């Protein structure tokens, strides 16, 4: 057993924890952070495999994931600000008017 196996376990764990957070938390920002956590778990897996396979491709993908995450954070958080300004709340349970 080498370090990358541990890294992969950590990745699976963080991914699941993040997913649970996405499912159960009400605060939209925390949900957002949990998504970032899942991103991070994916990054970990990529880095782990990159290390294991001695290929730089995984790391390059991590770089792009970081860039996309930054872009997503910019837009997503702007949306939360807008949402809070218009609705007065960012509770995902209350933000359910877009239905049938």
């Amino acid at each position, binding site marked *: 057993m080498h370090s990358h196996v541990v890294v992969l376990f950590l990745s699976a764990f963080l991914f699941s924890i993040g*997913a649970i957070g*996405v*499912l*159960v938390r009400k605060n939209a920002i925390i*949900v957002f952070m949990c998504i970032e956590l899942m991103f991070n778990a994916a990054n970990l897996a990529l880095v782990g495999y990159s290390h294991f396979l001695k290929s730089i491709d995984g790391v390059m993908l991590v770089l792009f994931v970081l860039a996309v995450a930054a872009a997503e954070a910019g837009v997503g958080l702007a949306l939360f600000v807008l949402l809070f300004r218009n609705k007065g709340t960012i509770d995902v*349970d209350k933000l359910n008017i877009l*239905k049938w």
Partner: protein
Amino acid sequence: MIKYVWLVPFFPLIGVLINGILGWKLEKINKGIIHWIACGAVGLSFLVVWMIFRELLNLPPEHRHFEIIVYNWFTSGVLSVNVAYLVDPLSITMSLFVTGVGFLIHVYSIGYMGHDEGRYYRYFTYLNLFMFSMINLILANNFVLMFLGWEGVGVCSYLLIGFWFENKEFASAGKKAFVFNRIGDFGFVLGMFLLFFSVGKYTDIYTLNFYNAMSHVKFIPVAVASAVGILLFIGATGKSAQIPLYVWLPDAMAGPTPVSALIHAATMVTAGVYMVARCAPLYLHGHSAMEIVAIIGGVTSFFAATMAIAQYDIKKVIAYSTISQLGYMFLGVGVAAFSAGVFHIVTHSFFKALLFLGAGSVIHALSGEQDMRKMGGLKDKIPVTYWTFLIACLAISGIPGLSGFFSKDEILGKTFASGHYFLWFLGTVTAGLTAFYMFRVLFMTFFGESRVEPDVAKHIHESPATMTVPMIILAVLSAIGGYIGVPHLLGGSNRIESFLEPSFSYGGIETENLFHHVPAGTEYFLMIIAVLVGLAGIYVAYLFYMKNKSIPENLVKKYPTLHKLLYNKWYIDEIYEAVFEKPGHFLGSVLWMIWDELIVDGIVKGVSNIVRGIGCGLRFVQTGSVQFYAVGVLLGIVITVTYFLNF
């Protein structure tokens, strides 16, 4: 000049583009620009054709054949179609009179349509478009380009018949013409396909080029050749108004009279005859098709003539006369007298165009009156029209010396020589009927006391020079046009026949036994009979409508059934209506209610209802809760992960 043959269709096309795109503007500025462009375009085409004709005459007969390829239209598998023009005696003869008569009628239209405000440009655009299509039809070196022209003239005919489309009757006359032409076109297309396929199958030469296909037509079985011939002839019956598809032509008189003269008398309706002549080797090979052409032609010419004698509308009489004369032409090509048929096309285009222009002039003078019962005594009021009309009547009646005599006699003589004695008899009787109904028109219109309605009578005037000059030119042509084909019997050399012959005889098919030798005495006898019958027709007309006007009325009283039958044109329209239209209408209603409403709409609506039902059920998936959607994403991940990690 021959290699510039593409200029012939090019000039009218330019006219179409200028008048079609800018015409509405030009009409507001000055009407003169429009007709100068339109007439100029056709005039230039005529000049080009004339020069080509001169050049062709200077060549030895066996070299009078050129194919000018403009560009490759399309290539699909073994079929390659060029936009290419064929210059040979036949096509040049046709285009010479088409552009010539077309030019005269364009000029005539200036006067005739002068009062039509607001769509003067449209009229001339259509007319030029017609010239473009007709020239393409004639000069095409392959079936596809010919079909383009064939359809183009059909469209122009439709547009011009329904030119005064506010009148619902006129508009539906246009539709009728179009529909009947479509039926014919269907046959034409099938014939084209079958020819392409069968020539390709038996000789491995896949082509729709006329010369190429016709030179190899002798290798396909006679039955197939006949089938091709019959299918193509169905197209010709539509375009050239023969039994059974002739009924559109009398109604086509709804269009402006110059249009009737140009399209429905002189040029377009002869396209069918031209096509049969163009495919001469095919018809010589498939002789049962040719037999059918001859029979249909002869019978049509007789029936149309009987219908013409009981009509009161001046244009309708001439229209039936056109059908009858077209029947003559088909009779001619149907007995393998191709050059006689084409000869009659040419002379007929002169005197029939003149008859229509004369009728148009009468109608113009009478402010739109077409009923001959309201005419009479116009001889002195519109003398130019009278004299030209008289010449045309004499020409069509086959009075010796005038053009109609030579061409008609040529056809009848060849019919007799080929052994079709009954058809010869029909043709001769028709000649008498023709003389009768034409002089009936002449006497009812120009002689006797005036039956014109008083308020119309005040405005009677001779037509302007733009109308009379073309008529005079056509009158001269009608008088002397026959001298291009004086038969050997009368000391001539039948120049048109020797000029045209190379266009028919290249197929390598034995034609020696088609005509029996007829002694000169018999030929003279036939000629005299035809002339006498014509004179008799004129005399009977004189007797009926000049000397003793009670005879026609007595005859009507004596034979009311016959008169009604003739007056109602043998009830053909009614029969067609009962046999085709009513069942078609019924079938349409049934299909509409059962197939369309129930099945097609049922399927369409059923599909939409199913989708809507599913949507109704599924919309509850859209809870609006982000976390609910996240579960969906997780489900996707579960499936992906399970699949990739286990399988």
